[in-house]
């Protein structure tokens, strides 16, 4: 892989962010709204239920982590959609850049878009609701890495669809994460799900990530085995995503959809 070419493609997206204040505002806006919404909802439940004391902390931490996953996936999709919307797709695919370099560039650049949105929201939660996600400590780094790998994987699968089927696949990009959210057990323990759904849910890294987050925040226990399991599952999906992307690329070349792809 050529680092300069990966940097060039990253630069294209960083210039885009740098050159547009509304774009930065948009990146910050949604995560912040999420924090406000879930913060007030969970505060209400704390005042009106006797479940456990730290309801606000648990739900808000889950909201922040889920948003991290959501943003990393959407960032990945958005960067690819930008190429389609700007009708730059053909230019990109005739440039001497390997598919692995395109994947690497989008993967590394998505982190910037994700963090621009998430860091202000996470910091805002501290004075507003007295909730700091950083209380999770060292395991937070592993949870974020796992979520990022899985988010990028979802992005890869959606972009595979965009490459193969063209812009008509765009709606799937927005719907993909909402489809997995109920199975991810983000705001509730896995026991809430029916037995048969629990089996499917355990195949996703999300369950292990959010179970572990609750484990740390409620019981103050760190189960690194659970975290390792989540990382391994995410990584398996990531490899699967890369294979699907390559297959889609070859499929698109056969169908001739890479040329003149635009809005």
């Amino acid at each position, binding site marked *: 892989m050529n680092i300069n070419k990966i940097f*060039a493609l990253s*630069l294209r997206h960083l210039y885009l962010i740098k*050159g547009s204040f509304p774009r930065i505002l948009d990146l910050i806006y949604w995560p912040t709204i999420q924090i406000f919404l879930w913060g007030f909802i969970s505060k209400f439940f704390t005042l009106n239920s006797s479940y456990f004391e730290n309801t606000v902390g648990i739900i808000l931490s889950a909201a922040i982590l889920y948003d991290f996953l959501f943003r990393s996936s959407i960032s990945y999709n958005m960067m690819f959609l930008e190429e389609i919307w700007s*009708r730059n797709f053909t230019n990109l695919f*005739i440039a001497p850049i390997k598919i692995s370099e395109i994947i690497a560039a989008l993967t590394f650049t998505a982190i910037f878009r994700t963090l621009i949105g998430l860091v202000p929201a996470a910091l805002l939660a501290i004075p507003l609701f007295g909730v700091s996600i950083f209380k999770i400590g060292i395991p937070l780094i592993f949870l974020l890495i796992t979520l990022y790998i899985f988010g990028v994987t979802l992005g890869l699968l959606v972009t595979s669809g965009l490459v193969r089927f063209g812009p008509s696949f765009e709606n799937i990009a927005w719907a993909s994460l909402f489809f997995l959210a109920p199975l991810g057990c983000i705001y509730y323990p896995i026991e809430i799900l029916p037995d048969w759904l629990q089996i499917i849910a355990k195949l996703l890294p999300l369950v292990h990530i959010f179970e572990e987050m609750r484990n740390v925040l409620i019981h103050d226990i760190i189960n690194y085995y659970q975290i390792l399991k989540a990382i391994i599952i995410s990584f398996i999906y990531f490899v699967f995503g890369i294979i699907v992307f390559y297959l889609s690329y070859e499929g698109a070349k056969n169908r*001739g959809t*890479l*040329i003149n792809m635009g809005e």
Partner: protein
Amino acid sequence: MKLKVQNLVKKFNSIIAVNDISFEIEKNSTLGLLGPNGCGKTTSIGMMLGLITPTSGKIYIDNTCFESKNRIELLSLMNFASPYIELPKKLTVKQNLEVYARLYGVVEINKRVDEMVEDLNIKSFLHKKTGELSSGQKNRVSLAKSLINKPKLLFLDEPTASLDPDVGDFVREYIEEYKKNNELTILLASHNMKEVERLCNKIVMMKNGKIVDSGTCDQLIKKHGRQNLEDTFLKIARSNYEYK
């Protein structure tokens, strides 16, 4: 750089978009690929750029067969410009040229960008967003991008479409001048017959996915008993003429 296309076929399910075409472009010459809309020009160019996988046939660039394993190496020697594809609209002209210079592995990026800016009179809108440019300005930027890596093989798809006569003439003159000073083989797809007459050494006429005739401008005009290339084009496009 020499380009050789040998028995190229592309089928999309039951539709044959390109039907067994073969031709060669000699080093430093310009070949005009002509034909009515939907005759298979864009699909053929797509295959030559590695964007479309041929159903069968081979593409040789300087006797090297274009395959997945040498795709990067060969693409770094080529480039493409078309008014139907654009550069990122929200990036400035300079940012776009810089990004593409990096993608093509240009060594002295600033020097090369400055050269293109100077040659194509881009300086006055260099820091403007590409989406805010006029058609003529966009066209010049697209041409600058297509020459940023000093390609040895350039594909131009209707490079002067939708341009006013003045800008169109500027682009044609620039291409002519650039070719005089640089080693460059060009494949030009165009519906502007005057442009083809001016720039091309040889012409390949396509119809319904097949090559129906080829030769120099003068040869084709004479062969079909017409006064100019436009009339020759019309005769071939409207008749059931079969090239032997």
